């Protein structure tokens, strides 16, 4: 039943979805690369971004060109604060802890996620907010596929942002510093790189990107307190597939997951489409922990 | 054959590097063998292979003549082969007494038996006063003593000690060497890895010197240390 037209449709839509995933996952991969932890509050950065954009654009009536960066900054600020207040102990000597490093990281980020979700739920309310679309066109032809203008615009912004991030990591001093620290924290700090500052930077960046993703999609998904849970889980899957900590891996894995879900939903099962990624995650962790491209092995 | 542990043509490669190259020797019951050699000569790798933490690419290890290559550490432990690590490994969030009990109970001692044994060890190693502290709070030396003790909760057939004396206070060093001497007198078998030549000379009747993964010399400690190859190795090691 898979006609050429349908296949093209699924491919285009899958890739676009993958782009959005990437915006979330890259940040998570950066954090893991530098700190060796999974941020279980990543989805809440996304949620905060969605609200920031919606409130700034819809309530305060600020132009979208301003609202989007505002969302990014919101997420970045949050990420920075989180790193400063909660992540510092991770570099401290943890031998004497009642809690070990990994447990601490999981509990704290997990608790943070609960905190943010409920804070927003109480402070702003459980209602879903509708955000103004980036463009009003409700149908645009994209190659073989049709797509809502909002989606096309969001995809465009995403592409630009990702390209920018890539250049930043590749060429800027701080970009190189980030890569150095994720390869060898000790070595990097011996080489005079401020690993702590890099950690802050990475958290801010990750927070900003996730928030931007939330902002871009809020017109489609409608901001609500628990809106982050889903994209977060997707990005966990992606980070594992791409090889924990590998940025390029995360990007490619994002597109891949997008395609897998898009085709799987039609060819395999619509009902269980969301389990595909999770099954992949488990299989990868068990049989190919270094992911598709990562070199690093599982910590045993 | 009377050998307790026999290493036959064991070889281990890491990528290009040959860490252990066709090493063979036997250890008879009751022996106290010093395993010496410059850094990177393959001592620890060899020990890891003997204790089941690494698997040899070639060659076999025999315990009482039975091949036990590829056995997991816990299985070898149950066979009475005890390993003390160079980097101390204890249970930081458990108190000192429980640290010892783990070994005893795992090797099938009854609670009370294990208790008595532990108390005796604590006295002998002079760390009885910290028995109820969490091991994580001990000083480096005390931790070493504790791990040392863990190896003797149930008299091992063979104790593999990796640098027990490295970087600890002389009195603690003394406690351990006394302990070793006493047990050796009772017929306990040891393999002792150390850079501390005086201790080796003092404790070990026999020594095996390795360099670049090979056995340079094996025999009476004094002869081994006198062997030109050995001296060369150490000087070379020093020069390098």
């Amino acid at each position, binding site marked *: 039943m898979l006609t050429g037209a349908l296949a093209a449709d699924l491919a285009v839509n899958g890739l676009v979805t993958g782009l959005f995933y990437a915006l979330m996952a890259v940040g998570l991969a950066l954090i*893991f690369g530098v700190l060796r932890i999974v941020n279980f509050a990543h989805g809440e950065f996304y949620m905060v971004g969605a609200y920031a954009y919606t409130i700034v654009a819809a309530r305060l009536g600020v132009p979208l060109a301003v609202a989007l960066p505002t969302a990014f900054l919101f997420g970045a600020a949050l990420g920075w604060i989180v790193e400063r207040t*909660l992540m510092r102990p991770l570099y401290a000597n943890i031998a*004497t802890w*009642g*809690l*070990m*490093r*990994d*447990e601490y*990281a*999981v*509990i*704290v980020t997990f*608790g*943070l996620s*609960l*905190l943010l*979700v*409920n804070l927003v739920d109480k402070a702003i309310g459980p209602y879903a907010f509708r955000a103004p679309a980036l463009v009003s066109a409700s149908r645009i032809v994209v190659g073989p596929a049709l797509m809502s203008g909002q989606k096309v615009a969001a995809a465009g912004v995403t592409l630009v942002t990702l390209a920018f991030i890539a250049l930043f990591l590749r060429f800027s001093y701080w970009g190189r510093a980030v890569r150095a620290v994720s390869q060898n924290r000790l070595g990097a700090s011996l080489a005079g790189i401020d690993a702590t500052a890099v950690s802050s930077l990475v958290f801010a960046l990750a927070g900003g990107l996730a928030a931007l993703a939330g902002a871009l999609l809020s017109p489609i998904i409608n901001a609500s307190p628990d809106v982050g*849970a889903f994209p977060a*889980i997707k990005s966990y*899957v992606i980070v*594992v597939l791409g090889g*924990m900590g590998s940025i390029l891996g995360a990007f490619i894995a994002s597109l891949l997951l997008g395609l897998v879900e898009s085709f799987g939903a039609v060819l395999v099962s619509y*009902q*269980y489409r*969301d*389990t595909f990624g*999770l*099954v992949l*995650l*488990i299989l990868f*962790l068990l049989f190919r922990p270094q992911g598709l491209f990562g070199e690093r092995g*599982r*910590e*045993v | 054959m009377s050998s307790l542990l026999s290493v036959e043509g064991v070889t281990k490669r890491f990528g290009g590097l040959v860490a252990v190259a066709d090493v063979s020797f036997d250890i008879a019951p009751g022996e106290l063998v010093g395993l010496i050699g410059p850094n990177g000569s393959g001592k620890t790798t060899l020990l890891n292979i003997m*204790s089941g933490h690494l698997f040899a690419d070639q060659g076999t290890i025999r315990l009482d003549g039975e091949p036990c290559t590829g056995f997991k*550490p*816990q299985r070898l*432990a149950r066979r009475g082969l*005890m390993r003390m*690590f160079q980097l101390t*490994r*204890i*249970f*930081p969030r*458990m*108190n000192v*007494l429980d640290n010892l009990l*783990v*070994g005893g*109970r*795992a*090797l099938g001692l009854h*609670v009370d038996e294990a208790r008595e044994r532990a108390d005796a060890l604590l006295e002998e190693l002079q760390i009885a006063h910290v*028995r109820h502290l*969490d091991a*994580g*709070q001990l000083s480096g030396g005390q931790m070493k003593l504790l*791990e040392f003790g863990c190896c003797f909760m149930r008299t091992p057939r063979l104790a593999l000690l990796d640098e027990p004396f490295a970087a600890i206070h002389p009195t603690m060093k003394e406690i351990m060497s006394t302990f070793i001497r006493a047990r050796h007198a009772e017929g306990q078998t040891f393999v002792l890895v150390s850079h501390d030549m005086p201790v080796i000379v003092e404790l070990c009747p026999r020594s095996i010197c390795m360099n670049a993964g090979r056995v340079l010399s094996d025999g009476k400690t004094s002869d081994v240390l006198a062997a030109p190859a050995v001296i060369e190795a150490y000087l070379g090691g020093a020069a390098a």
Partner: protein
Amino acid sequence: MSGDIRLRREFIATALLLVMLALLPLVQRDVYWLGVLVVSAYFAILASSWNLLAGFTGQFSLAPAAFAMIGAYGAALSATYYSVPPILGLIIGTGAAGLIGLVLGRIVMRLKGPYLALTTLSFAEIARLVASNSINITRGDLGLPIEGWFNDRVLWFYVFLGALAFVICGLYLLLRSKAGLFLEAIRDDEIAAARSGVRIVFWKTAAFAISSAAAGFAGALYAYFASLVTPELGLVQQTGLVVSMTVIGGMGSLIGPVVGAFLVYVTSEWLRDVGGWQLVIFAALVIVFARLFRTGLWGLVTAALQPRRGKPA
């Protein structure tokens, strides 16, 4: 103080706590509050079982709620399609959770830290998604209604309290045996434990299976109590609550999770009428405790009881 003395003290404290709870119906017979206490007990069982994994074995699973859900569906499905009696349903639910736990535990044996957390989280999500999307079998999010067992709220309260006591006693017996020693050893240093001759695979898998079974037991019991089983039982947020309760009460102690569960749950119900910021407060508490008082409330209490021996915090 030695490990088993500490454990015995915690056990006695827990026993006293349960006895006090058992007296509550004398003063409070309001069905609403009895219900709240029942749910608290439900969470206390979940937290205690999770604590066996995270607190004593160092396996930081994020699937306790999922196993409770599995237990609940085990009971509900067998009741719906084979109309088995509640007792049998309980056994089926517990068994199903325990069996799946055994398999999962064996699979994730070698995984640590974030890797273990992610794998168990994914498993939990898969379980929930399957439950909520297999509409023809489970009626999906609409939930599977089952015949309540009995209706007397006071009786239910004692059933759950009994179940909790049962689980606590089981854990106590397990932990004071050599198993407790081995599990803690594995938590602290697997290699050292292996060196000492501890059977790592066996004990880790066993702990996972037992913990899962206990969670499944709680879930199955809850199914008969609520008489409606929905996939929401397996939501990650439910796990979040279990973690919070354990951390606040005190991880790695027998009594901590129980205290945490009743404290967090009853207070949050009690605060419900005044704005319902309770969940915000508790989430914040979790972070504060993890950051500053890593041994939880119980740790603070014991520290206060014997100031001269500063316990590691």
